[in-house]
Structures are given as C-alpha cells and as structure tokens.
C-alpha cells in the first residue's frame, strides 16, 4: 500500500513505523486526496481521532494527526501533516461524519481552521472565549479574563 502511494505521490509522502505503529507523513497539499483514498480504496472506514500537536519553534508550527482504523483489515494508520500557524486545512467531514466534533475540538484547542467544515465553532470552551489553550504559549493558569469577568461576574478574572 505504502509503495503504491509512494510511487503516486513521490516525495510528498513518507511512511514510517515506530513501536509497531504505522504512520504516514504527508505533505499538506496531498491531505484531502490521501484521506479520501484511504477511506475509499484502502477501507479505512473509521476515523478514530483527529488531533494536533504544537511545535512553536518550528516554521510550520502544527502537526495535524488523523488516526484511522480499518474494520476489514483490522489495522491502524496515522496520517500526519505539518501546517503553519494561521493556515487552514481541508475538512474531512464529508469523508467521515465523525470528524465534525473532532475537528471542532482541534479548532477550539489550537485554532486550526478546517475548510469546508459545516459548523466550525468552539465546542468545549464557550463561544466568546479568546485564545487557544493547547498551544504551548498558553499558560496553564491563563484564562480569558474578560470573558470570566463578564460571564461569571468574577472581578479578578481568575
């Protein structure tokens, strides 16, 4: 499978195995295509999780990770791509409906936008919240003081 895709996409794709788990490092431009092929041709019919990792020192700050599973093959694969801060990425809701909330959570926590998502808004944090908590530059005690003051009526904002 990996060989097939490598021949098709060339340098945009890199397959690795770590601790017995496979993952594909994919160029951002190939993401929608790869995901669709994985779903339709390789029967990865179950999107387990979508998440992101923040590397503030890198030029492309974010890793977006799709964890996929195939019921027929009983196999997992991770698809990873790097994107820069402020860049957006194609939504996979049309491929796996379950991506809906998962992508919303990634947006909520990292501020990564997904193009074509039907309803991209915050999910765990309140709608008016400012800041993306899972970024490394967001301190653990930090809060949106303005929001806390207005909505909870706590003067100190903490």
């Amino acid at each position, binding site marked *: 499978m990996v060989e097939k895709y490598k021949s098709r996409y060339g340098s945009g794709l890199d397959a690795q195995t*770590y*601790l017995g*788990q496979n993952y594909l490092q994919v160029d951002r431009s190939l993401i929608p295509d790869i995901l669709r092929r994985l779903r339709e041709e390789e029967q990865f*019919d*179950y*999107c*387990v*999780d979508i*998440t992101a*990792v*923040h590397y503030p020192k890198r030029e492309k700050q974010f890793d977006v*990770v799709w*964890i996929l599973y195939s*019921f027929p093959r*009983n196999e*997992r694969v*991770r698809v990873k791509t790097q994107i820069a801060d402020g860049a957006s990425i194609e939504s996979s*809701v049309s491929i*796996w*409906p*379950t991506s*809906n*909330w*998962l992508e919303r*959570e990634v947006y909520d*926590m990292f501020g990564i936008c997904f193009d074509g998502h*039907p*309803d991209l*808004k*915050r*999910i*765990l*944090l*309140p*709608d*008016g919240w400012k800041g993306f*908590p*899972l970024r*490394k530059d*967001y301190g*653990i005690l930090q809060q949106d003081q303005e929001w806390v003051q207005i*909505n909870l009526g706590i003067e100190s904002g903490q």
Partner: protein
Amino acid sequence: MSIPEKEGTSDLSPGTLGLGRASFEGSNLERETPGKAYLDSNELIINMGPQHPATHGVLRVILKLDGEKVLGTECVIGYLHRGVEKIAENRTYTMFNPYVDRMDYCAAVSNGLGYCEAVEKLMNVEAPPRAQYIRVILTELNRIASHQLWLGTHALDIGAMTPLFYTFRDREEILKIFERYCGARLTTHAFRIGGCQYETYAGFEKDVKNFLTFVAPKIDEYETLLTTNRIWLERTKNVGVISAADAIALGVTGPVLRASGVQWDLRKAQPYANYSRFDFEIPIGTNGDTYDRYLVRMMEMRQSLRIIEQAVDAIPEGPIMGKVPKVIKPPVGEIYHSIEAPKGELGYFIVSDGSTQPYRLRVRPPSFVNLQALDVMVRGLLVADVVAVIGTIDIVLGEVDR
C-alpha cells in the same frame, strides 16, 4: 424562561445541527424571543439541560420540536471542561496518572489501564504477568460496575425507579473490593506505570469469587424486572435505531456499535493486557435500537464475569512491578494506544520529547464521539425518546468535556 438570557446569544448560532448544514438548510435555529405564544409556530425550541434530571450531568441539548416530535438537536458541551490535556503537559507521567481517573469517573480503572499501558508501550516495558491478571480482574469488575450504573440510571430515565437501587446495591460490592485493594472507591488510581502498586490483599481471590456467585443471580434479577416488561419493550424497541454503516461512519464504538451488529471489540480485535488468554464472547445485537443496546450490555456483564472467573483461577505468583526507572522518561517518539473501555474505544495518543512530562497527550474519549450520534438517533422521535437515547449512549460528562 428556560433559555437563560446570558448565554443565549452566543450558543445558538444559526444553521447547524448535528451532521451538517445541508440537512438544516432553510430552517434556522435562531433564538426567538419566547413570549407567551411560543407554540404559535409549529416549531418549538426547548432547552434540555444543563440542569436537567435526565442528561446525566451538565449536558445541554437544544431540541427543535414540532409538537413533541424532534426535528433536530444540538448538543452544547464543555460545562465540565477542566483542560485535562493541558494539565498533562505540565505534569510528569506519574503525576498525571490520577488525573485520568477523573475523566470517566464511572470506569476509573479502565482509564488508568489505558494510560499505563500507553506509557509502558512508549517506554517499551511490560507489566509482569501477575500485574496483568490483577489489571484484568479489576478492569472487568469496573466494566460491570459501569454497566450497572448505566442500567440504573437508564431505567430511571425511562421511568423505572427500582432497578437503580438494585444496581447500586450490587455495585457497592465491587466498590468494596476496590476499596480493600487500593483504598479508594471511585477514582481508584489502582495501577502504576509498569504494573501495580499494591499486592492483592489477603482474601482478594475469595472476595472476587464471592462476588461472582453473588452478582450472577442479581443480573438475572435486573432482567426479570426489565427484559420482558411490556412497557420497557415499547419504550426501547425501535427507538434510537442506528445502522451499522451509520455507526461506523460516526465513529461510534463500544456497546452501541455492537448493538448495531458489528462484532468488534478491541479486547479481541487488538488484544491488550492479556485478554488473548481468556475465553469470552462478544455479544452483538441486530437492530441497533435501544433494546439491543440494553441486551448487549447485559450480556457483556455476564461475559465479564466469565473473564474474571478465568483470571482469578489462573492468577500466577510473581512480582507486580516491571523494571521501570524511578523517574519515568520515555524516549522521544509517539504512541497511540487504545483499550475497550465500558463505553467504547478509549485511546491515548502521547507524544514524548524525552523529558519527564508528555509533550502532548491526547485522549480519545468514547463518550465524546458516541454523543455525536445522538442527533442521528433521535431525529423524528419524541421528547421522551431523547431521554431514553441519551441514557442508552451511556455518556459520562467528565469524559465528554475532559
């Protein structure tokens, strides 16, 4: 009014419910000013929760109704958000271990098992056999406890009060075993990275065996109350149906998926701990309705009893802690490890930068993903069914919101 003024403007943005915009084009879920005549139009928007007896915590469901028929739902979650993943990045691997108990607090042992195994995998160590057996026994006990809690509250939602007390009585026995084992009842923190902290207490095997003989007839007792009860059948049969294809597309796992007829259980599909040693079956349903989910969970309890019985009989002697350094410092790398929690696939995705703290720790919560299927399941049903379906998905808000 039931929709509080303060948050109304922000939470009810127009357009989307559940799966996507397309299905709700044209009908806007805008906030109307509810006067005395909110039944004027055919559509009624009602706010279920976050303070509602049947939403199992602080879940808020905005229902769009035509009379009593549900046209669409939108879940508003996050009321219990504590930033578990952020906390993980600021704690060492050992320090974070108790935090996972607070996610799905009904199945704290399962959470701990998943986390410890994920870190062990990342460090390439393995718990010794005796620890594996202890883990399996406690995890399966916890699965029964979780299902009992589910059954009681679910039955209460549908209006049967009594099963709640029966299940709580029997769950108490499990909690007593937990308490004797590790001192805690709910958030047990039973396992450590590399094995178990505590040796079993004297009489542990006897207690577990006593529990097995105690609880088997009790499960029959629940079934006599409900399984053939006419009203129960009417309330659960063909309610909240979700097909296997829909369930897979929505990423639904656990008993909900199995009730739709997909024979998939991580304990069999990708065995972790030492589940491959045990002989048990994966119960599945056929219709994917609320009744099947009920039956699947009832059968799962019995299968868990089987596993525990085998585990208690075969538990070996030996150390309970593997060779782990005092300071846990996994090598640079990342791992995704998932287990079959009572509610579905519970996954941990850990990125390590070689330090004592996880660089990034992502929890894949089963309740969160399963809750997404609520909208598909309740469309076209009545308000009373929404309650039944929320109950049957078996969510724990601590895990949904993290």
